[in-house]
């Protein structure tokens, strides 16, 4: 019976023009976003061409310096390293490329780490340089093609708050440069899925799903002679009607999220390549510790946490749907409650109970990477707590919805 009800509810949803139209719009959006990511992806050929251009300039410079002089020796040394780097890129010898990048890091990096000199907030912080080197080591060990460019301005962390020019102040231009180059795009399947996760697994995604399923309860014509009467004149337990609706929405959301992932991976694979499942994603830890996780794992964890965010949002939607029996009002109240909840949660962010507020967990990628925890210096904002808080919050709302339905059943006229 349960499976049949679920099947019927799913059938009812997917056969609506509205559902199909929104699904199509989402597909168009994914394609458009992929085109954007593709255009903004820096290709290896572009990197090699730039390096060769630099080499040509250096050769011209070198020809003007007298051989055997100290200047020549120094410049020639730089030139040879640049040439070796260009060769490494051409041969796709990634360990050599990363070694060269690690060589370029400050010589006192290890001593600063040993002395735990993490007090600065100016870009690049010690944490930023340390994690950049660790990222190169990870990529080198796994022989992964990096996302370009590998410049010092291409990697920033949550601890980089100020962007000094020549070591002083907070320069807007410098900030913009770092923002621009650290926001790297890749059109490979896995990396593009990562872009989609970062973009979609937040409030925007929640609004989309609420719009998609906003009328799931109210369209039955609760309190009137609507289609709910068909269900209520069948040998079906009254509560299983609401339960099957909730489960069908969750089931379809899961399929939708999986579908988004599949479309993103397929687009990337067809037009570029699959990409690297184990591309490193930085996860912040307490006391400036850190670790890297596979990009695939990051996407999965972000997706699962976002699924819990949806569970919580749908619980709100069902409660308001039963209360108001009107789609627009229920949807509006749900969205307003989430936005207000986030506002109030922001105001209480420094309180000791902040991590028990479900509205803090809506930007799931920042929870999984613990970027939010690092920014707020509250490492209770983690993946596990997010799953538990959203799960418990949803449970409370669902119990309230159940009690409301019992009350309404007794009070009906």
């Amino acid at each position: 019976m349960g499976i049949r009800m679920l099947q019927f509810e799913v059938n009812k949803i997917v056969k609506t023009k509205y559902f199909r139209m929104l699904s199509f719009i989402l597909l168009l959006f994914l394609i458009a976003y992929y085109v954007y990511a593709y255009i903004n992806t820096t290709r290896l050929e572009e990197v090699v061409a730039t390096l060769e251009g630099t080499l040509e300039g250096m050769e011209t410079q070198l020809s003007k310096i007298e051989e055997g002089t100290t200047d020549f020796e120094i410049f020639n040394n730089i030139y040879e390293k640049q040439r070796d780097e260009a060769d490494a890129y051409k041969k796709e010898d990634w360990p050599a490329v990363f070694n060269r990048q690690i060589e370029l890091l400050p010589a006192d990096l290890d001593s600063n780490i040993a002395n735990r000199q993490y007090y600065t907030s100016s870009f690049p912080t010690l944490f930023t340089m340390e994690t950049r080197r660790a990222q190169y080591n990870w990529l080198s060990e796994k022989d992964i093609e990096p996302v370009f460019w590998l410049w010092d301005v291409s990697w920033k962390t949550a601890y980089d708050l100020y962007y000094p020019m020549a070591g002083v102040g907070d320069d807007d231009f410098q900030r913009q440069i770092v923002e621009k180059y650290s926001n790297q795009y890749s059109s490979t399947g896995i990396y593009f899925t990562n872009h989609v996760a970062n973009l979609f697994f937040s409030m925007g995604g929640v609004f989309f799903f609420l719009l998609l399923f906003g009328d799931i309860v109210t369209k039955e014509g609760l309190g009137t002679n609507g289609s709910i009467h068909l269900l209520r004149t069948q040998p079906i337990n009254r509560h299983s009607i609401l339960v099957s609706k909730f489960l069908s929405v969750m089931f379809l959301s899961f399929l939708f999220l999986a579908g988004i992932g599949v479309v993103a991976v397929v687009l990337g694979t067809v037009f570029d390549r699959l990409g690297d499942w184990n591309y490193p994603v930085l996860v912040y830890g307490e006391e400036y510790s850190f670790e890297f996780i596979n990009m695939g794992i990051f996407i999965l964890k972000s997706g699962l946490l976002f699924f819990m965010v949806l569970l919580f949002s749908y619980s709100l939607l069902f409660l308001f749907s039963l209360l108001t029996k009107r789609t627009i009002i229920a949807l509006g109240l749900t969205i307003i409650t989430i936005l207000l909840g986030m506002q109030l949660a922001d105001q209480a962010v420094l309180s000791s109970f902040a991590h028990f507020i479900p509205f803090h967990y809506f930007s799931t990628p920042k929870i999984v990477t613990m970027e939010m925890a690092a920014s707020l210096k509250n490492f209770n904002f983690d993946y596990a707590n997010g799953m538990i808080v959203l799960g418990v919050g949803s449970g409370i709302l669902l119990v309230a919805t159940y009690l409301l339905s019992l009350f309404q059943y007794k009070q009906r006229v």
Partner: protein
Amino acid sequence: MIVQVSNLKKHYKKQPVLKGIDITIESPQIIALVGPNGAGKTTLMNCMTNLLPFNEGSVELVGKKNTDASIFYEVSYLQDNRILYGDLTGYDHLKFICHVQKIPLSHIKEVTDRVGMTGYMKKRVRNYSLGMKQHLLLAMSIINKPKLLLLDEPLNGLDPTSAINMRNILLELYEEGTTIILSSHNLDEIDRLTNIIYFMKDGALLKESLQDFSSNQYFVNVDDPLKATTVLKQAGISCTMIEGVISFLEIEVILQNFLDIMKANGITITSIETKKIGAERRYQELFAKEKTDETVAI
């Protein structure tokens, strides 16, 4: 016991809608619920099927309390077409009912053939006409071969052929042992379906057997209508003539007397039509005092 409704009372705020309804049905019957709009027919059916709560009384259908959802394995309720899902096909609706009622899917073809909707059962309901929707509702109601079938205005939107088909199906179901309770505005059809009519007025029920009120009205075509009128007048027989057709009630004029007079005067009868008029006649007697400006939809 198929239906046991005892002292059913319902009111909206302080306005009584059902005033102590009692219905007992022990063996298969066809019962017509007749009354003006707002008399409480749909409310009664909704209360019986637990779609609406009531304030006093009790309802048992097929031996179970009406709050027990399992009654719907044996009870069907044909409601208005707002219960249909426009984006689904007729087949989707029937398949769903088969699934929840554990009926083999092979019954779908059987029932759609019977109702006459096989040709369009795979079209979306939003594209159905009123009559097509009514067909689907009927198919959905009878696919489980119910012991008790409640129908709220089943003839709405049906063309004459479909109405005849529905009447035949209901009579077949009755013969197969189904108890049928229907509300309808079509008194002609009710006369053809049943003699048992429950008149509803202001939330109260008046049970009548039309065997006491049932009567035939004859419509006779003759070769010389003017002469026929004259001789009937002379014989003191009460009849009316509209567009050359003589009509009279069975209870007022004995048909054989009429035939004898025609024969004695050399008038040839070309055709005789008979129409049962019990429900309409009784309805007019009961509701004649209704305000003339009220919509007397029966």
